[in-house]
């Protein structure tokens, strides 16, 4: 019996003749039944590494070193063996689905490996039961939600009983609730079926609590960390400035208190969940009060919001897609202000995207009206930024609208520079990373010089670093250039750090609008993880920076 589920020995990889190594002497081995998170900044060769486990998906190029799956070289396996031994779940829920019905999708892999009908029925039934998809077994795949689609993709792989399950950012396109469901099921696949899992994920918030092993790849494809969760957290807390933002809120909060010298038990593992975070902060605050005698004052609640300056306003908006369908907007009143970033949050199907498209003017409301008294130029960025690109080179794409937008080639160069995209100017737009694509789409829209920017999920599926950059760009646009910005987002932490005001949509109405800080302090459940950690202990804290500040105000520096 082979000892490990997966072994990688001194594996290096480079694209063709360019000679630049994407992966550099990577060595590790995974125990059977382990759950491993593979982390790294974008461009560190994570996906290339995972794809090398499966010959069918391997990236073309020069490789050296050895890979063993259950003791065998995957390239020597028979096609059927190779298909079943390693299962691969990819990022996009939509594109992985091949057939039109749920049952057919589940059966697809088994049909491919020529399984007899009786065994196939049994396998499919078992799998459908395990994943709880018996209820929508007969549905058409087009009618499923994004979360259901990705669960189906997972089920369609697990039905083939892989020894190793490889996942490449499976939840980046899902909203937070669907992502949580996905991770719950994934954890069951690991703990109840004993399937070895290795996953690339930038939602460390979700994956760290369930991973028992972490691998960290640095730029250039060098494996710099291989060990347990706490060691990984400590390494990041200590250095790697760029990636630290990806840590769970509880960990970042603890790291922040640790730097202030408020970590009571230096040897105890860092908290990663909200519950652990709450315990940690309660102890730290008590310690600070009793032992060091410092007084912790609450943070002032609320954020200064730039003055009211209505750009476009909607009054009593009612909208539905067809006369037969229910209303998607019901009596919505909403103002977008120049010089402000406003955020719309709420669940899927609450009408956020519809409100944006109504404000942009492409959807005519059935009742109510939208006023744009100053005839401002409104631009809408749709959810899939790839739709904005038609050319083979990014720079050609940026020049596409130069006649209608009346801008020059110099403007294009300037904006590429400003968005840090100058290096990518001759790249194909589809070859950009998720964060780069979002930035490029935003830059292309800005060339048209709009006064009002309506952005539908501008930070969907991108890593912490890119999120931070987009937040900075938006702030600059609103505060320094006076643009009116309205964005939707599921990432509440991003909203709390970036937006001036925040509105919640529920049941096709805008239920409340408040300054972003006050909004998350006043919300009990629908709030940032940091707010949920600090509630009851440190009032008025929504972001890690708030927590740091509330200690600083009391001479936190005394502890150093």
């Amino acid at each position, binding site marked *: 019996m082979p000892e490990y589920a997966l072994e990688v020995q001194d594996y290096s990889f480079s694209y063709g003749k360019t000679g630049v190594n994407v992966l550099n002497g990577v060595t590790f081995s995974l125990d059977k039944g382990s759950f491993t998170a593979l982390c790294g900044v974008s461009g560190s060769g994570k996906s290339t590494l995972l794809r090398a486990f499966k010959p069918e*998906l391997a990236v073309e190029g020069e490789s050296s070193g050895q890979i063993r799956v259950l003791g065998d070289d995957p390239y020597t396996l028979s096609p059927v063996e190779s298909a079943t031994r390693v299962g691969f779940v990819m990022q996009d829920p939509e594109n992985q689905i091949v057939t039109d019905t749920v049952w057919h999708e589940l059966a*697809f892999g088994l049909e491919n490996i020529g399984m007899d009908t009786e065994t196939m029925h049994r396998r499919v039934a078992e799998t459908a039961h395990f994943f709880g998809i018996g209820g929508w077994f007969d549905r058409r795949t087009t009618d499923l939600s994004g979360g259901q689609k990705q669960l189906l993709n997972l089920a369609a792989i697990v039905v083939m009983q892989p020894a190793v399950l490889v996942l490449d950012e499976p939840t980046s396109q899902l909203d937070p609730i669907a992502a949580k469901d996905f991770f719950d099921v994934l954890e069951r696949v690991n703990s109840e079926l004993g399937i070895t899992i290795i996953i690339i994920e930038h939602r460390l918030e979700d994956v760290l609590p369930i991973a028992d092993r972490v691998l960290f790849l640095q730029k250039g494809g060098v494996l710099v960390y291989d060990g347990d969760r706490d060691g990984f957290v400590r390494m990041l807390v200590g250095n790697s400035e760029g990636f630290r933002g990806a840590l769970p809120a509880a960990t970042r909060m603890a790291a922040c208190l640790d730097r202030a010298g408020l970590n009571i038990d230096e040897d105890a593992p860092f908290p990663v969940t909200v519950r652990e975070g709450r315990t940690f902060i309660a102890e730290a605050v008590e310690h600070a009060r009793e032992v060091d005698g410092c007084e912790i004052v609450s943070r002032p609640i609320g954020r200064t919001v730039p003055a009211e300056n209505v750009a476009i306003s909607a009054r009593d908006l009612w909208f539905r897609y067809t006369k037969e369908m229910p209303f998607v907007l019901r009596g919505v009143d909403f103002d977008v202000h120049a010089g402000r970033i406003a955020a719309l949050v709420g669940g899927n199907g609450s009408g956020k995207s519809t409100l944006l498209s109504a404000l942009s003017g492409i959807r005519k409301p059935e009742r109510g009206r939208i006023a744009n008294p100053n005839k401002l130029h409104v631009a809408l960025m749709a959810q899939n930024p790839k739709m904005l690109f038609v050319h083979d080179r990014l720079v050609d794409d940026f020049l596409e609208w130069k006649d209608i937008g009346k801008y020059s080639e110099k403007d294009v160069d300037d904006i590429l520079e400003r968005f840090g995209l100058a290096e990518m100017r001759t790249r194909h737009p589809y070859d950009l990373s998720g964060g780069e694509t979002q930035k490029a789409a935003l830059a292309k829209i800005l060339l048209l010089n709009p006064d009002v920017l309506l952005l539908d999920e501008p930070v969907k599926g991108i890593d912490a670093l890119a999120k931070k950059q987009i937040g900075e760009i938006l702030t600059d646009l609103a505060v320094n250039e006076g643009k009116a910005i309205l964005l939707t987002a599921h990432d509440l932490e991003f909203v709390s750090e970036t937006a001036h005001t925040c509105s919640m949509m529920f049941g096709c109405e805008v239920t409340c609008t408040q300054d972003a800080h006050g909004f998350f302090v006043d919300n009990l459940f629908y709030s940032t993880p940091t707010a949920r950690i600090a509630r009851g202990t440190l009032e008025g804290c929504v972001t890690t920076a708030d927590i740091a500040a509330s200690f600083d105000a009391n001479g936190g520096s005394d502890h150093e």
Partner: protein
Amino acid sequence: MAKGLFATYHPAVCMLFFLTAICFTFCTQHPVYVALTCIMAGAYLVYLRGVRPFLRSLGMFIPMVLFVGILNSLFNSAGATSLWKWGPFSVTVEGMCYGLAVGGMLAAILLWFSCYNEVMTEDKFTYLFGRKLPTISLMVSMISRWIPRMVSRGHSVYDSQEALIGGYDQTKSGKMKRGLRMATVLTGLGMEDSVQTADSMCARGYGATSRTSYARFKWHTRERIVLGLLIVLLVVNVVLLVTGTGSFKFYPRVSAIVPLWGYLTYALMLGLPFLVELERFKR
């Protein structure tokens, strides 16, 4: 899922039944046969869909029968019993009867097709014709996933484009240009998608060996019995039809309708979906 036990039978049985019903309906204009097939098809549709939707569809069928009847009586002046004459038009009782029979036949065919649609869902069809040709059945399945996706994606590309540059050029050539641009974007995205779908197929062993099929239907004794019954009724009715029970003359005079046992076998055959319901009373 269509109502009724018959819809749960093996697709081959259902398919044969509908083929039989539609072919027979098409082959005879005997008034009793036409009436029987109309009644049976109508009754089955009521059983499948309920009274209300059926009544709504009647709004389409009755005018059609009348229209064909009137048209035939206007343009077909064969027949001995003339009702009235106007220029080249001569309306005869026989022409009218024939027209109504043809109208009824067309209505019955449409009714049977409506029933067919309720019972023979796409998966049953693919099962019947795709099992021996797994590649074709997979292709059908993939295409029927691809079309709605492409349409909805087309809408989003159009919207995102209109929202940004729609306002600049409202002329015809501007719209043409944007249409072309949309096609380019859709092709680009489509190619990107298909690369990933191909990856997903390869990863799950597509082409690894000869494909089998997830058959959702099995042959049971019950199915074999009903299939046997259907074949017997089919043979009997074909014989009766060929030997003359089904023959009927409209011209020059409408022949008399005589009660015959043949009508009963015809009714039994078309009533098969109701016959199989008798199983409920079995103890």
